[in-house]
Every structure is written in structure tokens, then in C-alpha cells.
């Protein structure tokens, strides 16, 4: 079980090499297979997550949630997806059409690209990039542009307001997010995600970097535009924020991308702070799934428990609390490493 997927990949590559393909083409075919697997994982996860989120919100608000289609309503998301496929495609007449059409595509492309570097098990990573963490942060920050594109091109007041709020919020929380991960990098001494996982074989970084984890978690919630930081999409005042004008599949792509980002950010949290795929008994790829889902459950729990935060409070939380705290965290981590080194650990 442990090497299930690795064995499949090895068998495939051996078979291809036997067929007389060169190493380059074998690598290419393997990459296509891995990419397809990732797309399948993403879509499957999103279908489960949307259902799970609706069920959990129902549980928290003491109602039933989806319960008609299939046992516990588990086919509800599939029905919704089919419905979205058949919806007519409306592009309002005054929009900037090119940007309007590219925005959802750009969003989903950026979200899928994040999965290239996440280790999904022992030796199970598509591209074991030496600057993996840096890649993740820089590509992840591009989502801001997608939302701005959507909001600006819609030529709608709700959209523009939502997009501007979203950009202000996301760039503000980008800083504590990037700073909080510096502590982890300092201890691990590498930006390679596999190396960071390996560095946690004795002790998880959540123990060494609790402040960094809390900062990362809050900043990530804001980056995802999830509640309690969902001012950009505050449906009671902004309709749907930047997504107001989108219909059918274009809207579905935004939705898909948001949940894709949620999984990616949770998987990164599991990788950096909870030992990644390491764990006893169960195979490694099972452990990362368990850890990722536990973190996502906390995200959902937070969203449905806390009321929305006011815009000025939201901004001051980032700049006046999280940024100083994460700076101090870097300082304390540096002092701690020097002290431990001095003690000869």
C-alpha cells in the first residue's frame, strides 16, 4: 500500500522504456499522467468539500443541509455541477470582454499550478523544486490579479467594490503569510518542501513554531477570502462581490478555484507544520489526506462560527498585529536557533 502509486508510475515508465521510447518522452508521458491524476484529485475533492461544507454549516446552524439526492445528499454537488454546465452564458454588454473571459481561466490555472510542488506522499511530488515554498507563495499571490481582473472587467459597482476590497485584503495578508513561513525555513534550512518534511521526522514544526502557525492560519483564511474575512464577497451588501456578473461555467470555475486554493493552502499547512506525509501505520499518502482534511475542517468551523469582521478592523489586524508579531517571531526563532546551537544540539 505504501508504494502503491510509486509502483504504478514505475511500472508505467518501465513499460514505456521497453516500447523503445526515449527518457524524455517517458518523462513527458508520466507528467501527463500525474497532471491528470492531480486534476482528478482536485475535482473529486471539490465535489466532496462543497457537500461537506454545506453539511457542516447545516450542522452548526441546526438545520439539515442537503439531504435529498442520495444518502445524506451526497450527490447534491454533482447535480449542481450538471446544472451549471447547462446554464446559459451571459456576458453583459458593457464589460471588457477579453478580460472578463480570461479572469476565471486565469484563476483556475494559478490554483492548479500550486499542486505541482506539494508532496502528496513519500516521493510523491510532481516537481521536486528546490525553491518549492517560494514558488508556492509567489504563484499563490497571483490569485489577487484574477479577482481584480474579474471585478474590474465586469463594469459593475458591486464587482469593483468587491474586487478592491479583495485586493486590499489579500495584499495586506500576503505579508504576514510570507513572514510567518520564514521561521520554518530558518529551522529547516531549505525551501524544498520534501526537505522541510524530512526535517520534521523528529518533531513537528507546530511545536517549534506555534506563533508562525497561528499567523499563517489567519493570513491564509484572509487570502482565501473565507469567513470571517469574507468582506469582499459579503453577500448581504455586495451581492457576490467580484463574481456578480458571472454565470454558468465561468462562475463554476471561480468556485472550483476557490476550493482548489483551500485544499492547496491546507495541504501546505500540513506539510510545513504537521509533518507532511509522515505518520505511523497508514501509508504516507493517506496521512497527508487525513491531515489536510482535519485542517480544512477547522477552516470550515471558523467560517461558520465567527461573524464577519469589519473592514477597518480587518486591515488593522493585518498591519498592526500580525506583521509585528511575525517579525518578532523571526527574531525569536533566530535567537532560539543560536541558543540551541550554543548548547551544542
Amino acid at each position, binding site marked *: 500500500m505504501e508504494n502503491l502509486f510509486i509502483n504504478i508510475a514505475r511500472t508505467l515508465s518501465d513499460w514505456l522504456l521497453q516500447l523503445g521510447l526515449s527518457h*524524455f518522452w517517458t*518523462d*513527458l508521458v508520466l*507528467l501527463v499522467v500525474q*497532471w491528470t491524476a492531480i486534476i482528478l484529485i482536485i475535482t473529486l475533492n471539490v465535489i466532496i468539500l462543497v457537500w461537506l461544507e454545506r453539511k457542516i454549516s447545516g450542522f452548526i446552524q441546526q438545520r439539515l443541509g442537503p439531504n435529498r439526492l442520495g444518502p445524506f445528499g451526497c450527490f447534491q454537488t454533482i447535480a449542481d455541477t450538471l446544472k*451549471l*454546465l*447547462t*446554464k*446559459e452564458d*451571459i*456576458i*453583459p*454588454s*458593457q464589460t471588457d470582454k477579453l478580460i472578463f473571459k480570461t479572469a*476565471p481561466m486565469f484563476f*483556475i*490555472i494559478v490554483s*492548479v*499550478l500550486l499542486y*505541482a510542488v506539494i508532496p502528496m506522499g513519500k516521493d510523491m511530488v510532481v*516537481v*521536486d*523544486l*528546490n525553491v518549492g515554498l517560494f*514558488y508556492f507563495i509567489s504563484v499563490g499571490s497571483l490569485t489577487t490579479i484574477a479577482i481584480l481582473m474579474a471585478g*474590474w472587467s*465586469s*463594469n*459593475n*459597482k*458591486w*464587482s*469593483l467594490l468587491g474586487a*478592491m476590497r479583495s*485586493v*486590499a485584503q489579500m*495584499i*495586506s495578508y500576503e*505579508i504576514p503569510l*510570507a*513572514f510567518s513561513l*520564514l521561521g520554518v*525555513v*530558518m529551522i529547516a*534550512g*531549505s525551501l524544498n518542501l520534501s526537505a522541510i518534511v524530512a526535517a520534521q521526522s523528529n518533531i513537528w514544526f507546530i511545536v517549534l513554531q506555534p506563533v508562525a502557525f497561528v499567523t499563517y492560519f489567519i493570513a491564509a483564511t484572509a487570502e482565501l477570502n473565507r469567513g470571517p474575512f469574507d468582506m469582499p464577497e459579503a453577500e448581504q451588501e455586495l451581492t457576490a462581490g467580484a463574481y456578480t456578473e458571472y454565470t*454558468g*461555467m*465561468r462562475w463554476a*470555475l471561480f468556485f472550483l478555484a476557490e476550493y482548489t486554493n483551500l485544499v492547496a493552502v491546507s495541504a501546505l499547512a500540513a506539510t510545513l507544520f504537521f509533518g507532511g506525509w509522515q505518520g505511523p501505520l497508514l501509508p504516507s499518502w493517506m496521512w497527508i489526506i487525513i491531515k489536510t482534511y482535519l485542517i480544512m475542517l477547522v477552516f470550515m468551523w471558523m467560517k461558520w462560527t465567527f461573524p464577519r469582521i469589519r473592514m477597518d478592523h480587518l*486591515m*488593522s489586524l493585518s*498591519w*498592526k498585529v500580525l506583521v*509585528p508579531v511575525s*517579525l518578532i517571531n523571526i*527574531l525569536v526563532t*533566530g535567537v532560539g*536557533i543560536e541558543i540551541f546551537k550554543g548548547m551544542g544540539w
Partner: protein
Amino acid sequence: MSDHAALGVFLILTLVFPVAAMAAAWLFRVKSAPTREKLLPYECGVDPKGSGWMRFRVNYFLYALVFLVFDIETIFLYPWAVKFQSLGLFAFVEMIVFIAILALGLWYAWKEGALQWY
């Protein structure tokens, strides 16, 4: 294949995904001829007044400026953090100087009211 080439291939493959999704939607969706009213920007059912491309507060711009400064500093901090353990005391002193400069910048922006949301 090198890591960067693999990433490039991954990017090209990913470009296919949304295009395929849109193509599938194009196959299945209802083709309609919407009326003029249906193509108006949504404003709670009322005909919109003026363009949606309106002016917005300068606040957003101030935040963007502060963000830019800090984001560039982040880029410098990452390589430093990777090499922190092997550089020893030099890196440690360097860190205190650098974070002091960062804190000074933050304090200045705070004092000037750039972090105040109106």
C-alpha cells in the same frame, strides 16, 4: 527532464483544463438570444446609473505602496532564512539590523497614517 522544464510542461497542460471546461459547457449549455435588459450590469433590478468604472479611495493605493515595500523585503529575507544556520553569527547580526529597518519602516507608515482605514 529538468525541474523547470517539467514545470513548464505542467503549466502548458494546465492551460488546457479551463479551455476544456469551457468547451464542455459550450456543448451542453442553453444557447439564448438575451434581450438588452438582460445584458445590463446587475444593480438589484434597477437600470444602472453611470459606468461601473468609478473612482475609488486613495486608501487602497497607500496600502498597495506599503505592500510593495514589504513584499520586496520578503524576497530578500527568503534566501537569508535558507542560509541562516550555515552563516552563523554574521547572519544573526545582519538579521537584527534588517528587521530593525523593517520595523522602522512599519513604524513610519503607521505614524503617517497610511495604515488607517477611513
